[in-house]
């Protein structure tokens, strides 16, 4: 009896061990790191992919920030990176020096940025900001909500504009959102001297940590205005302004207006920046995020699974998630080019890491 029992438990153990190892062997662990802006979408995509398409693919994405993500890509400690600003400058040179080729950067989705405000009595979409006005707010030239320039542009609510100081709220942490926003401001505001980057030297205002910090500061402070990702503005139900675009039309954010803004000729390296879209109905402040890939991977299985997963994100299920989370899906023509680039990645067992 005793021997039978021990034999039985031994078999059970062996079977359990065998199934465990075979499952282990099939599972492909893919790691990525980078932009916080991209994190909700990437995590949701790969979670859905793991649950509904291929349970053996486990993608872990650390949202450590674009800069830290790019450094990890250069150091070869991740399989892909994500960033809202394309590779450039010293980092691009480091990458070229180490790997001998340019990084493969593929835009997977876009985002829009809105001005969110807290003005007692003024509802969502009621405030109109023309270019001169929002330039004046970010540079500190316009300091009051009852300024004659704001009143002139908002005849409908001119009497409701409160006699309050304008509190400009910006991100204090380095952020791709700030990069996209300042890239637009630099292009449209003649008096803007701070340039464009993931963190800049703000002439006025208070800095808050993260989208949630900006949202909290705006909500608590009557007279505050700041910039947040469109998806975050929607999530927090913040009042947002209608903006003047390059064509001189007043537009409200919509997925269509943002998609058409991103529908510009995309350069060969995909490093598309649209600081000031030109179409008559385009939403003016839009940007992309890219995944950064190597052109050679040492492991065939990992490469195949990674390419399959990335292609899926641009398919109907992936794009449904993109829209659901209020990111902007890529146009069809760009997706075809992304697929072609993904197919061009090769396997090289001796690839540098």
């Amino acid at each position: 009896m005793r021997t039978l029992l021990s034999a039985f438990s031994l078999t059970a153990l062996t079977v359990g061990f065998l199934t465990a190892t075979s499952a282990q062997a099939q599972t492909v662990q893919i790691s990525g790191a980078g932009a916080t802006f991209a994190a909700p979408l990437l995590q949701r995509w790969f979670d859905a992919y793991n649950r509904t398409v291929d349970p053996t693919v486990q993608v872990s994405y650390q949202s450590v920030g674009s800069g830290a993500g790019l450094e990890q890509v250069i150091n070869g400690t991740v399989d892909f990176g994500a960033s809202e600003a394309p590779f450039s400058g010293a980092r691009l040179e480091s990458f070229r020096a180490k790997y001998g080729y340019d990084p493969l950067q593929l835009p997977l989705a876009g985002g829009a940025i809105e001005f969110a405000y807290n003005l007692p009595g003024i509802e969502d979409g009621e405030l109109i900001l023309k270019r001169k006005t929002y330039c004046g707010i970010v540079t500190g030239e316009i300091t009051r909500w009852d300024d004659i320039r704001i009143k002139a542009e908002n005849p409908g609510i001119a009497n409701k504009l409160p006699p309050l100081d304008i509190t400009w709220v910006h991100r204090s942490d380095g952020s791709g959102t700030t990069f996209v926003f300042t890239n637009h401001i630099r292009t449209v505001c003649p008096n803007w001297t701070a340039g464009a980057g993931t963190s800049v030297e703000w002439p006025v205002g208070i800095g808050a940590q993260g989208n949630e910090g900006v949202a909290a500061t705006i909500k608590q402070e009557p007279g505050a205005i700041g910039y947040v990702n469109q998806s975050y503005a929607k999530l927090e139900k913040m009042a947002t302004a209608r903006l003047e675009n390059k064509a001189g039309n007043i537009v409200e954010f919509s997925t269509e207006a943002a998609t058409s803004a991103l529908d510009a000729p995309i350069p060969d390296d995909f490093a598309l920046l649209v600081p000031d879209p030109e179409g008559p109905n385009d939403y003016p402040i839009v940007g992309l995020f890219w995944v950064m890939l190597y052109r050679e991977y040492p492991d065939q299985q990992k490469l195949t699974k990674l390419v399959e997963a990335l292609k899926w994100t641009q398919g109907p299920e992936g794009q449904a998630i993109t829209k659901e989370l209020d990111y902007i899906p890529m146009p069809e023509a760009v997706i075809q080019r992304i697929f072609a680039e993904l197919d061009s990645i090769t396997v090289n067992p001796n690839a540098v890491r």
Partner: protein
Amino acid sequence: MTSAATGYGSPPNPDIDVDIEKKASLSRAVDVGFVRLTLALAGFAGIILIWVILQTTEAALPAIQQFGLGFLVTTRWNPVENIYGVLPQIYGSLVTSLVALIFAIPLGIGTAIFLTEGFAPKWVTAPIGFAVELIVAIPSVVLGLWGIFVLIPAVRPIFRAINQTLGWIPFLGGPAPRGPSLLIVAVVLGIMISPIIISITRSTFESLPRSLKEGALALGATRWETLLTVMIPAGLSGIVSSIMLALGRALGETMVAAMLSGNANRINISLMQPGSTITGLIASQFGEAGRLQVSALMYAGVVLMVLTLLVNIVAEIIIRKFQNLEQ
């Protein structure tokens, strides 16, 4: 040593002698081993410290070479043009920590006196002492969130009123206070560091010889006189070291500063206006920083380490002075 003992001595019973020597050498080996172990452990702490300093300095080297000591007096932080200086952050770190001490010292010493000098029965002081120690366990990010969502809305009207009535004092002046400010950071830091002052001061008072207090009372001193002229002077070195520990903690606190200071890269004499601190700057910008920017942030870290070192040296000097006074 052993060979000398066996060589020269002429023991009546060599077997016993050898046995004793064996025991002695064994216990001696244990002693020596223990001393070496503690030495190694102590050295390990020092090595880690030096290693961290070297690594940080090495990472900071490009910025040190480019900006030199001008880094300490420049007020610009411009990642786009790669111009960096941390004077506003040095100012912010020092001011928030010192103001936090102004809140925490009376609170800390007062609480410690209440808990040790028999003003209330044990069943009152024990839970308070326990609660004080639990404050230390609150994560600073939670205190930061509490600051944003509870403290700022609660104190804003008070700050506005102070600003309107006492705005002629430079520290309280400027435009009507908005949410985040150096003063808010200082208040939360004060809450965070008072438990350090309380617990160390409390154990200092508890470790003072009972005879001191009894003697003073026997000589006819009142409770006030005993407290002010005997107990506090006798415990002064403990109190001062608790204050210095608390100051070090306040200088190094990161999340609260990043979340509540407003992160404005400006030097503003008024505490009611936004500012920034070295730790807040590093925490905010590290993730997305460019190469030289990372180096400049490391340089800022080195500056903070040096600041903390200076604070500790000053503390050591002060403590020695007071110890001399006691003797």
